[in-house]
């Protein structure tokens, strides 16, 4: 259990107690109501994988999962998350440190250059493929549309589209294999 009181150096706001689950661990904290989830993750919990670009919902760099769904951490107050479950990019790797299928695909397909947008893309694409395994069959144009909520200033998106497709194929193959094993 992690427990601490976060106060930014410049404010003496009254605080509220919250308890939530972050990456499988229970967390209790006392936070100012105006603290954003993005800052709570980065400054309070030291989970700096979640990046902050625009702070108004446009770039997607801060995307995390809240109660199983992708969401912008810059558009959520930490106090709203009392009782919620949050997953960040730090939780994608396997217990042995191996890359998740989506992470591995981004590396294989050059889905990143500077890497600033990458955590947000990884979280959005992971949620997308959880919801819709058929992305493997989608056209490039469709994939571009499905990931249009995240911006990248470096890659020109080709690598990201390819990575999304490769990850979708890997996940589908894994699922087919698992289904085959349970049936046979």
């Amino acid at each position, binding site marked *: 259990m992690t427990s601490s009181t976060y106060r930014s150096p410049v404010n003496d706001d009254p605080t509220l107690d919250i308890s939530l689950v972050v990456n499988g661990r229970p967390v209790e904290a006392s936070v100012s109501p105006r603290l954003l989830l993005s800052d709570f993750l980065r400054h309070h919990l030291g989970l700096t994988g979640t990046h902050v670009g625009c702070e108004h919902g446009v770039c997607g760099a801060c995307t995390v999962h*809240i109660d199983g769904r992708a969401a912008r951490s810059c558009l959520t107050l930490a106090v709203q998350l009392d009782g919620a479950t949050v997953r960040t990019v730090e939780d994608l790797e396997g217990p042995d440190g191996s890359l998740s299928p989506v992470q591995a695909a981004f590396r294989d397909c050059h889905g990143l250059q500077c890497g600033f947008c990458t955590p947000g893309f990884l979280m959005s694409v992971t949620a997308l493929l959880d919801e819709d395994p058929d992305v493997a069959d989608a056209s490039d144009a469709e994939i571009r549309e*499905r990931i249009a*909520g995240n911006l990248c200033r470096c890659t020109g998106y080709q690598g990201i589209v390819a990575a999304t497709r490769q990850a979708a194929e890997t996940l589908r193959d894994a699922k087919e294999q698992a289904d085959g094993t349970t049936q046979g």
Partner: protein
Amino acid sequence: MKPSRFEYVLPRSIEEAVAARVEHADTVVLSGGQSLVPTLNFRLSNPEAVIDLRLVPGLDDVRVEGEWIHVGGRTRQRDLELDDAVHAANPLIRETLHHVAHPVIRNRGTVGGSIAHADPSAELPCLLLCLDGEVVAHGPSGARTIDAQDLFEFILSTTLEPDEILTEVRFPVLPERTGWCFTEFARRHGDFALAGVAATLTLADDGTIAWGQLAACGVTTTPVRLVAVEDALLDDAADPSRFREIAALAADVVTVPDDESCSSAYRRDLLVGLVERALRTSWQRATERATARTSREVTS
């Protein structure tokens, strides 16, 4: 950029929420936060109190009952989009929601929040107006119902009182023999549209056009009904061969001046093109629905 200091209020009932609205001079309601939190982050809005609706019970119920679809104000846009019963009752709703922002935003953004926010480019207010929907608002003296026609006043401004809370949004079930279409043009998918059109078109028993309902967003200070187009559709001679000339009657509602994304003239042309497309798609779907119904009647 961070929000300025505010009092955070977490009511457990709609009465408590309204009481908090009355008690504080300057309040905002936190529903999905997808429009509110950006304005807080940039200190475009510095309210005294933020009233978070998340623990108010009943605000995310969705049910189809008779001629109406009742949608709790705090229902997530994504949940309404994925609701199959709602889709069966009125397919225009899902088609419209696909144009609202990105899935990640719709995961948090709510139906009531979008309508209360009343962005003139937003799709849901336009949908509500097109369908002759209504909303329920709770205030200090109880609940009242407001017709969509009487709701939208100006850019980001509605006839909801500052001490009221929007609790429910009601969309009519799509009538029989009716086709539908939502179409818009945005520079990137998920951006606010330069212009958008919601339409329904209802056929008479003989397959001719009985009436149409159309509304547009992004073209003036509020969503707007395309009355001139609707009037022309009532004419006995209205048929698909005249859709282009009927669509042209929409152009005059545009009041948005030339801006950084396009000229006013371009927006007028765009609107006319979208109206024509919406009419054609609605016509085609209405015909398909009417034929499917007739063949069901014949076989049974």
